[in-house]
Each structure stands twice: as structure tokens, then as C-alpha cells.
């Protein structure tokens, strides 16, 4: 599976390949998981890690969330140039800004939740979605679930 920018007709696989996509999702879900919530809350409080003034590329790099070196440049390009072209479930925010706002709001709240990143078929919903729920049957805690529109790679 690859995250896709259908607006441009270019699958995310043109940016990072399937293994890289899975690797980044795995890194995100470890870093924003249940055991890391206190740390992320402190980082947000101390450095305003997620802010309209910073790009996700900057924030994720500060957390060392990156694919392997050979795909890093394209990952940065996806975050900086493609994700802002995505729609979101907030009509006033593009995909990039929606993710930033969701992380900011969560980690600035008094009781932040762990965050789970996932993907959904772009043919069903072409925007970034944010909701609260249980991402998997083995995760009993509520999470902020951030889902990125995706098109399976051909």
C-alpha cells in the first residue's frame, strides 16, 4: 500500500516505496503510542513541536521519524509539497495543516491521548481524517486516529 496524491495522479510510491511507507507508519505509531504520551506532551509544551509556524517535516525530523536515507528526500517532499494539497475533514484546513492542528490540540490538552496513524482508500474519502477511537482490537485505550488518503500501488 502506498499513500497517494491522486490530485496529481502520482502515487506516494513515487516518493517513498511501500516498505518505506510501512516503516514510517510504524515509526509514527511507536513514537506517538501510549507509553510516549507524557514525553510528547512535554515536548509540545517546551518547544511547541507542532505549530502552524512549523512544517511537519521539521517536527518529524526533530523526532527522528524518517525513512531510510535513500528515501528521505522524497519523504520530505511529500510532507512539504504534497500533503498540503490534500483535503481534510475540516474544510478550512488542508491535509498537512489538519495533521499539525490535531497533534497540537491533543498534546496541549490536559489529558492527551496516544495517536495512531493509519491510511484509508482515497476512493472512499479523499481527505485526511481525524477521529477518536480504538484503532485496533488490541488497543483498549482511546487514541486520536489520523488517517491519510491512500491508493494501492499498481
Amino acid at each position, binding site marked *: 500500500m502506498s499513500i497517494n496524491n491522486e490530485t496529481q495522479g502520482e502515487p506516494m510510491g513515487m516518493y517513498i516505496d511501500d516498505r518505506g511507507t510501512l516503516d514510517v507508519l510504524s515509526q509514527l505509531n511507536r513514537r506517538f503510542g501510549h507509553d510516549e504520551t*507524557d*514525553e*510528547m*506532551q*512535554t*515536548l509540545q509544551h*517546551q*518547544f511547541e*513541536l507542532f505549530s502552524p509556524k512549523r512544517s511537519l517535516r521539521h517536527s518529524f*525530523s*526533530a*523526532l*527522528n*521519524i524518517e525513512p531510510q536515507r535513500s528515501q528521505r528526500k522524497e519523504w520530505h517532499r511529500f510532507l512539504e509539497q504534497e500533503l498540503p494539497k490534500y483535503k481534510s475533514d475540516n474544510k478550512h484546513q488542508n491535509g498537512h495543516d489538519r495533521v499539525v492542528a490535531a497533534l497540537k490540540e491533543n498534546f496541549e490538552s490536559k489529558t492527551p491521548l496516544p495517536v495512531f496513524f493509519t491510511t484509508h482508500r482515497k476512493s472512499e474519502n479523499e481527505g485526511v481524517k481525524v477521529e477518536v477511537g480504538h484503532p485496533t482490537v488490541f488497543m483498549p485505550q482511546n487514541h486520536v486516529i489520523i488517517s491519510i488518503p491512500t491508493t494501492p500501488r499498481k
Partner: protein
Amino acid sequence: MYPVLDSVTMPEGSSYKGANKPADLGDLYETIERYYTRRVTKHGATPLGADWRCRATQELRFVQLLKICDFSRPLSLNDVGCGYGALVAYLAERHAGTDVDYLGTDLSRAMISRAKRRWRGHGRRFVVSRAAPRVADYSVASGIFNVKLEQPVDTWRSFVADTLHAMHKTSRRGFAVNFMSPAAAANERSTMLYCTAPEPWVHYCKQQFRCSVGVIANYGLREFTLLIRF
């Protein structure tokens, strides 16, 4: 070598039994040097190269350690175990308004060489050394007590004690260090880590240095910072 306190009971239930022979620590220093040289050779001048998870948490530690400093006036600072000089970047970003006379020391020549290359022309000094070769207003050491590798715990405690004494000797106004708390031990590398509760080292510093010791904890990381003020 400095004596360590027989009377300090460690969380594990053991107690200090006195100092090790200097030769023991010589081996320890060589082991540390080799470990960090390998890290920086593999990962370069990055947080991973100094065995940190990421820049954000590395800088969160700097926030706590630098609480020892009064940035309202010019100051001198020894950075013990400075690695590739990440603290210099942090100081430039967060304390640009204060004139800081900075000296970084590290056991690893490879680290110091990267630090010098990185900060060439910025008026910062770096030396390969076990301890700071000068007295400064403040000293800080981030993470140098964490990775004990295969060293016996008693030997590692002697290393910690020696380092604290050296920092005390080379600081005019105070120094700050951090330690991993026992909660950090719950992972696959835990046998290679030195984790401790704050109390033994707070007690040790108060007795040895006749100073005030502040503990900062609960800053999101499984560790704590000691601020030792004279």
C-alpha cells in the same frame, strides 16, 4: 580516585564499598571511548551518533541541565561529554543573548574532531579529555552516566563519583547532571544501562560537596536531573 560513601544504600540494596583502583577506571574510560567513537563513526554528528533518540529529547535534557545557569549575565560553561557539540547549537538558538564562554570535553577523539569541524570559527573550544582542564562558572553533563555497557555496577558508581568530584572541582557556581530512573530499565538494553533513584546521589552530593541539590523529574523522560549549587 575519590572515596565513595559506605553509608549510602543504593536502591538495589547494595552499598558502596570504597573506591576501585585507578586501573579499573582506565579500562572503563577506554571502553566508553570506543563505544562512542563507533556510534559517531556509524551515524555521524547526529543525535543517534551520540546515542540519543532524537534532537527533540536531546534538547529537552539541555533545558533541564541549563537551569543551573544564570543567563542574565555572561558566563563560562564546561560541557563534559560534549559529543559532537549539540549543546552549542542549542545555546545559539535559545540563549543567543548571553555571552557564553564554552568548552566541550569528550573522551572520543572522533567526537571532538566532528565538533571542531562543525563549530569551526564560532569561538567554541573542544578538547579530548576525561575532565575539564579549566574552572568555569558552571558545568553540565548530559547522558554520560547512562550507558555502562558491560561494566560492573560498582565500577560504574565509582566512575560517577569521580566525575561528580571533577565537576565540583572545575565549577565555581554549580553543575548539573542527569541520570536514568529505574523506570527506564524496562527495555532490551537495560542490562547495559545504569539506572538509579535520585536519593543516593542527592545524599552523596550534599555530604561530599556541602551544597544544595535540586532534583528535576517528571519532564516527560524516564530520568531526572540534579542541579548542584554552591
